[in-house]
């Protein structure tokens, strides 16, 4: 058994959900130390959503699963919608897939930018140091780093602009009310940015809040609100307005009028601009100052992707009525990368996914079973809360790595823990880019990895190795890189001779050209009453969420038509899960090994690596149905099913 933990973060803040981290660092005698063993990652909140879904109308499931997480709001809803569509054999129109792509894509861009500035930046940016910045020199830095970004009423930010930001910070201090900035690890020796670099990033922190408010309008036009926009099984609930002008009592219409379409176009343009002008150069700036973080935070090196963003170029076939068959491939490919071959994409086999509860607070299988067959019940046998501390200040509440210690179960693929998320996305695209099936986005990924990460500093790169992508810094880099790829995929991009890719109009334009087409398959609700036409026993829906592979399984009752069984295996579950029966740690836990801490009481270094995964703990915690029936048919190909009759599609008009 490992030594008593002396590094504890509870609550881990600047994440979604409730997470506790424990680790043991071998003290260096100067207040710091080195973590030599894996840490311990524990989720401490549970709601039991899958239990709640039993017996519900499958059309409603998306609204329940959407509330698994208000940050990942679109992806949980859409995964559910896809699972039900797969279960009942319904396909959706091209417009619906374009809109879903844009909504998921906008969520990637929104979440990744907000993660960098609002959840992660304060691990790298010292706000107190920013207050010592010279505004003139900060303006000079802004011209170099973000030379096309003009937040100052359409002009480049000048010294006066940064003085205003300084005044806001000073005002907090003058009142003695630091609000959100109180009690940070300010002045910690691991902060490396200059005062001007800190002030520039603080300024972008504030501006990103205003930017985020604009880009979520895309969700609002299509889904009526954000967070938690509305979706529907069988397509999209939104539809083109009969009235291009103002929507009112007299003329009616919908949000997809001239104004709404313009709002989407503006959101798309702003997304792309902010990524190009601010987020990408800021990440590179931080990466240059913190290059040593390419040496910390590696996981075991196994990566998993379910695949995401069906694209017209990848559609198997399209029907005359506008319905499309599900795609043969995705922008982010489906597949697995093993540690011993980091540039090779191997096929994903859904049957090799298992979950075990060896270290989770459930009764169920300790050895691991397919998600659809497990029988688990809530079973808390951890320490009691509210017991205070021992006289020496140590905690009476300590989780034991040899016992149950988390509400997250341990998913495994081929018995191995897998990292999912942006790093996995970039590695799988990179790997496919080296094959005959290389997509344009894969080629762009390869170009940027070479140009920005691998090239020597003399050529403007970071001078790091491909292998070093598996690191804390690599995760941050891959997150911004995929954000750029997706923002361009939505907004369109010019031809790139260096990458060898042609110009692309972008999903928005392609949708716009087709906007009068169908949005919903009218057979959907009647199909729910026709179990004889349902192609599979268990519907499987998946997305690649911004945080990684997300799968929902739904089993419908063939008499009542209601949900018998519902199961989610979620991105942050893969990353944040506990040890398995043989003691192999999950990715968060493994990634902490080797961290050198300057001050055990201020474990900033641990926070950097945990935050690099973008934890989303509400997502990771759920329970399964005690229905032990084995899965009969799950086709991993995102809804591909045997029924391809035209009667399954929207009726031709």
């Amino acid at each position: 058994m490992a030594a008593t933990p002396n590094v504890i973060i509870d609550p881990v803040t600047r994440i979604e959900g409730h997470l506790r981290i424990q680790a043991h660092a071998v003290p260096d005698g100067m207040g710091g130390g080195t973590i030599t063993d894996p840490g311990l990652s524990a989720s401490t909140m549970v709601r039991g959503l899958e239990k709640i879904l039993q017996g519900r109308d499958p059309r409603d499931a998306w609204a329940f699963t959407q509330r698994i997480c208000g940050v990942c709001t679109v992806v949980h809803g859409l995964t559910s919608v896809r699972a039900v569509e797969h279960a009942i054999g319904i396909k959706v129109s091209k417009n619906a897939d374009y809109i879903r792509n844009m909504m998921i894509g906008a969520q990637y861009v929104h979440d990744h930018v907000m993660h960098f500035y609002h959840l992660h930046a304060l691990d790298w940016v010292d706000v107190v140091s920013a207050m010592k910045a010279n505004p003139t020199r900060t303006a000079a830095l802004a011209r170099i780093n973000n030379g096309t970004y003009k937040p100052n009423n359409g002009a480049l930010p000048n010294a006066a602009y940064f003085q205003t930001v300084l005044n806001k910070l000073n005002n907090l201090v003058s009142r003695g009310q630091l609000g959100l900035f109180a009690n940070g690890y300010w002045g910690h020796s691991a902060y490396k940015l200059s005062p001007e670099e800190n002030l520039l990033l603080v300024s972008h922190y504030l501006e990103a809040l205003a930017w985020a408010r604009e880009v979520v309008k895309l969700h609002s036009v299509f889904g009526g609100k954000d967070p938690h926009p509305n979706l529907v099984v069988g397509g999209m609930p939104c539809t083109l307005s009969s009235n291009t002008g103002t929507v009112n009592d007299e003329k009616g219409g919908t949000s997809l009028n001239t104004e709404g379409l313009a709002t989407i176009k503006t959101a798309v343009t702003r997304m792309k601009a902010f990524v190009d002008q601010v987020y990408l150069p800021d990440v590179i700036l931080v990466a240059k100052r913190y290059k040593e973080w390419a040496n910390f935070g590696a996981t075991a090196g196994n990566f998993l992707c379910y695949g995401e963003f069906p694209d017209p170029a990848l559609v198997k076939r399209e029907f005359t009525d506008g319905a499309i068959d599900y795609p043969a491939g995705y922008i982010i490919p489906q597949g697995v990368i093993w540690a011993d071959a980091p540039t090779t994409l191997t096929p994903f086999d859904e049957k090799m996914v298992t979950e075990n509860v060896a270290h989770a607070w459930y009764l169920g299988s300790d050895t691991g079973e397919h998600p659809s067959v497990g029988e688990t019940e809530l079973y808390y046998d951890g320490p009691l809360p509210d017991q205070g501390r021992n006289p020496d200040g140590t905690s009476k509440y300590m989780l034991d790595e040899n016992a149950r210690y988390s509400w997250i179960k341990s998913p495994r693929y081929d018995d191995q823990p897998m990292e999912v998320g942006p790093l996995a996305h970039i590695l799988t695209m990179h790997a496919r880019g080296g094959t005959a099936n290389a997509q344009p986005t894969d080629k762009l990924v390869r170009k940027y990895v070479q140009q920005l990460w691998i090239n020597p500093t003399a050529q403007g790169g970071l001078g790091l190795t491909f292998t070093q992508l598996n690191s804390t810094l690599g995760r941050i880099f891959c997150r911004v890189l995929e954000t750029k790829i997706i923002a361009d995929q939505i907004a369109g991009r010019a031809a790139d001779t260096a990458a060898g890719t042609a110009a692309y109009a972008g999903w928005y334009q392609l949708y716009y050209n087709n906007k009068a087409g169908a949005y919903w398959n009218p057979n959907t609700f009647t199909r729910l009453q026709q179990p004889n036409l349902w192609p599979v026993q268990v519907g499987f829906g998946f997305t690649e969420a911004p945080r990684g592979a997300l799968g929902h399984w739904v089993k419908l009752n063939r008499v009542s038509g209601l949900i018998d069984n519902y199961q989610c295996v979620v991105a942050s579950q893969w990353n944040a899960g506990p040890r398995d029966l043989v003691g192999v740690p999950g990715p968060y836990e493994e990634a902490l090994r080797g961290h050198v801490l300057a001050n055990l009481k201020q474990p900033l270094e641990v926070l950097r690596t945990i935050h690099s995964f973008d934890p989303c703990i509400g997502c990771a915690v759920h329970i399964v149905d005690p229905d032990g029936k084995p899965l009969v048919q799950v086709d991993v190909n995102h809804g591909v099913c045997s029924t391809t009759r035209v009667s399954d599609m929207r009726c031709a008009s």
Partner: protein
Amino acid sequence: MSTDLPSRSDHSHMQADSSDGVTFDEATVERLLQLGISRRRFMSYCAGLASLLALPQSMVPRLAQAATSTTLPSVVYMSFQECTGCLESMVNSFAFSGGTTIENLILNMISLDYQETLMAAAGDQAEERLLSVTDQSDYVLVVDGSIPARWDSGYFISGERSGVARFRDAAKNAALIVAVGTCASFGGLPKADPNPTDALSIGDLMADLGISKPLINISGCPPIPEVITGVILYYLSQGMPTLDSLRRPTVFYGDTVHEDCYRKESFEEGPLAWAFDDANSRKGKCLYMLGCKGPVTHNACSRIRWNQGTSFPMMSGHGCIGCSEPDFWDRPNRRNEKGFYIPIAAGSGHTRGLPCNTCHDDIGGDDD
């Protein structure tokens, strides 16, 4: 249950070493500068707020005064069984007019002293922060998420304390408690049948714990961002707003979303939309047959609209799911069936010649 829950004094030596905390040096503190916010834009914001809250414009100076006092009111925001959707929504707050935003709110108008998703501090430093700010008095305690009834269930633990203990201790010195979102207001999704974790709303937990404090429920899944920030600012400037029987401010929850919906006319006279994407859907006809719960749902979505007035659910083509009402996940509709696509039963709603048995003004509660 609550009698066995260890009291706060048991962990009072949780206070971290102050040398671990924030260290603003004297020199920094002395370099104070004046606030750089435009007075004109700020006043415009207050005027917009007053208008939305149906306050006379003579109240604008008081709003402005409250929002610019030298000592900003402390807001402690705690999260329990939630999804972070409410916080995401609040971050989308914007000006009613004039440009005051969440950035200005958190920098200039309130002191957001504890909020786990946004705060710099983590772990012991975050816990120390929570204990020190809740040792003061007169802060506003904002809560999102429901709380498991049993402190020893293990269903919610944070900072080594149960949800019950965290809430009880933070509520002790609060001047006002604001339950944000339907989970905190009414139990919401965790409380949906069969309520696997015995989740309670904040109001029910307060009753269990014998806590008697002013409580405002700002329901919605999530609530409209301007409603969250608007109610907080209203309280700080005017005191308690008028509440309905479910403790929701009537200024935002007095009407149903149906009453301000532009599709209302066809609810009365037809034609109705019968399927998504049909001709009547495109024309903006009423979504009643597609299950819209607008006639029984009290909220301001169709009036304020979402995301800076961009849209609201019915404008984008999907019916209201009723998310600001208690137990909306289990609402019985026609044939006593649950479901967001099942039309509401006859006799529900304010209009179409039907008696209203849902409005709080009549029987003091919802219809379930």
